[in-house]
């Protein structure tokens, strides 16, 4: 029974002349989430998050799936980068079943995960500009993203939600044309990116709006358990790929982008520069791709009782699963610990004191995906 008590703003008592603004759910920049803002004129006094408008309770749904069919729910954590979440599921189940996949599968999974990261970061860059009311960068990055989606479409049959990584290997064998499409996408990125990057990075109005706004100090990162680009922009060198390498990430040579400033501009730069690193990784993986081994290893239908914890560096930060098996054909319980769910709480701490106009930029720079915030 929907009572509606959540939506109506309560009468203002002692807080006196403050205006309570419901920034969301139906707001062009909020996404499916309500941010309750107490305003003094144009200045933000207090902020309260109210997520939960796209909750699917995937953790419960996963209990009704088999080990392999669970990928359908896992990849829907966030549709923008579904490949990282799929990879983590495969790693968790392989850990439970104690099987190892061949090197070439690991390499191709790295390629897919990095493609997912590029696709997600491109949209992130576009929406960070979008928060300032200019749509041109979004259109430009979508044009690049299209090449990667072409590759995914040719490889898996779907542009988003590809269902391409399964426990024990890959859903399909990559063909020669797949690699060619991927190479074309890389080429196109390398051709266009230097120019785009210059335009994006040195845009004077963007610098004016993002620099010094929404500073997250290093302590706050540890305090709130912030992850991913948000943590790295505040000077915390935490990247699961290099810290605890998985799926052969130790074979590749790339930089972890760390900025010290911790403001919105630093977060923007981290996302911007990580795209190049991902391109580097894909190139190395394509070059060093082993040829021996199978594309899929058999995973038993029933996995013996036990538990596994695994984490990958997803595009928005470390994505952790705690998977428990009771010896059945599917998971007994899955806990999905999502980065956006941790990062969003930084907003309540850093937004007060800023102008209302900065709420959009801070929110965009926190790089939230509502899918994995609500799950």
């Amino acid at each position, binding site marked *: 029974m929907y009572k509606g008590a959540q939506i109506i703003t309560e009468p203002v008592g002692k807080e006196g002349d403050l*205006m309570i*603004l419901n920034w969301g759910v139906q*707001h*062009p*920049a909020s996404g499916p989430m309500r941010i309750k803002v107490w305003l003094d004129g*144009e200045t933000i006094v207090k902020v309260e998050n109210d997520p939960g408008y796209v909750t699917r309770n995937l953790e419960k749904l996963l209990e009704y799936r088999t080990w392999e069919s669970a990928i359908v729910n896992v990849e829907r954590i966030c549709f923008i980068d579904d490949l990282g979440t799929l990879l983590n599921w495969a790693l968790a189940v392989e850990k439970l079943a104690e099987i190892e996949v061949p090197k070439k599968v690991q390499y191709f999974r790295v390629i897919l995960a990095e493609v997912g990261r590029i696709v997600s970061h491109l949209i992130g860059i576009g929406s960070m*500009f*979008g*928060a*300032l*009311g*200019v*749509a*041109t960068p979004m*259109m*430009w990055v979508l*044009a690049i993203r299209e090449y990667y989606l072409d590759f995914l479409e040719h490889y898996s049959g779907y542009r988003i939600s590809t269902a391409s990584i399964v426990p024990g290997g890959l859903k399909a064998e990559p063909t020669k044309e797949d690699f060619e499409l991927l190479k074309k996408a890389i080429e196109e990125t390398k051709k266009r990116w230097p120019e785009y990057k210059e335009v994006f990075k040195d*845009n004077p*109005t*963007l610098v*004016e*709006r993002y620099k010094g706004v929404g500073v997250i100090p290093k302590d706050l990162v540890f305090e709130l358990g912030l992850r991913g680009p948000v943590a790295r922009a505040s000077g915390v060198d935490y990247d699961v790929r290099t810290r605890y390498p998985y799926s052969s990430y130790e074979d590749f040579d790339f930089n972890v982008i760390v900025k010290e400033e911790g403001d919105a501009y630093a977060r923007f730069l981290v996302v911007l520069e990580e795209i190049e690193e991902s391109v580097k990784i894909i190139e190395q993986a394509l070059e060093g791709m082993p040829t021996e081994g199978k594309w899929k290893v058999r995973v038993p239908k029933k996995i013996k009782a036990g538990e596994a914890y695994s984490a990958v560096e997803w595009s928005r930060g470390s994505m952790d699963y705690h998977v428990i098996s009771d010896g059945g054909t599917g998971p007994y319980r899955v806990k999905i610990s999502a980065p956006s769910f941790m990062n969003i709480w930084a907003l309540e701490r850093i937004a007060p004191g800023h*102008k*209302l*106009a*900065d*709420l*959009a930029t801070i929110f965009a720079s926190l790089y939230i995906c509502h899918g994995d915030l609500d799950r």
Partner: protein
Amino acid sequence: MDWGEILFRTLVFPGVSFLLLVIFATFYLERKLVADMHGRTGPYYVGPYGILQTVADIFKILQKEVIIHREADKVLFLVVPAFAFLMVSLVAAFIPYDKDLWIVSTPYDLIISLALLTSLPAIFLFAGWVSKSKYPFIGGIRVINQLISGEIPLWLAGLSVALWYGTFNYVEIVEKFDIIGFLVNLIGFAIFLVAILIVADRPPFDIPEAEQEIVYGFLTEYTGLGYLLLAGAKFLEVFVLAAMTVTLFLGGFKGPFLPGWAWFFIKLFFVYYLAFAIRASTPRIRLDQLIKLTWKVLVPLALLNIVLIILLKGF
């Protein structure tokens, strides 16, 4: 002019019908040019080159239900858009499209246009106020903040032209226009260009209707005809201000070979193109940054410009 001609000019060209056409044309032009800068095609399917897309959209908006917020002041809520449209259309009456192609021409054209334009922020604030809703209210407050700081440089830059040519009449200003006048007023031109972007809420100064911050500002609660009139008023405001720029600084209908009105529209297109290019490339700035810009840069510069023009005029 006899009564028939006055009636024709008021109702057909360059009066009401023409202004409606202007709204259609600028809307289409904006979509097409901005789409080009985005690397898209823009309107394509409706009519040749998608020309009729705007028509389709406007009729779609007209079909929408008119929703009036329960708390809103119903009469004012309905009247305000019409009033806004009327006030902007009045300014358009003074624009000379050609040597003798205008509706009204008085010795005080410039003063009257600027005074009429100054009434707009109050109307927009009212539109936000009578909506009795939070986002429109913030939008209305922002309009006042922005336009007070934007209109002072606009006035000062506009008046510097009148100072140089020694007249307020548009036609006379255009007649007296020459290359020296253009060069002398170059600083004023730059200030005026920035100021019209501020006054007309064009990006990067679209703060009162910043979509990502306050949804659509004072337009948020409007639907159907009311929305159309308010949005139309904003489009006309851009048109009027661009036409004023052309008249004051770029020599209006003056030019060789082609007829006067053709030159007028070529120059107008140039100003529009500039506004669209700025829109496609520049993120929005914050209100406090805008106020800093206007009061610390534009207003002192405009005052200095006036001093400069007085000195030059003296020699």
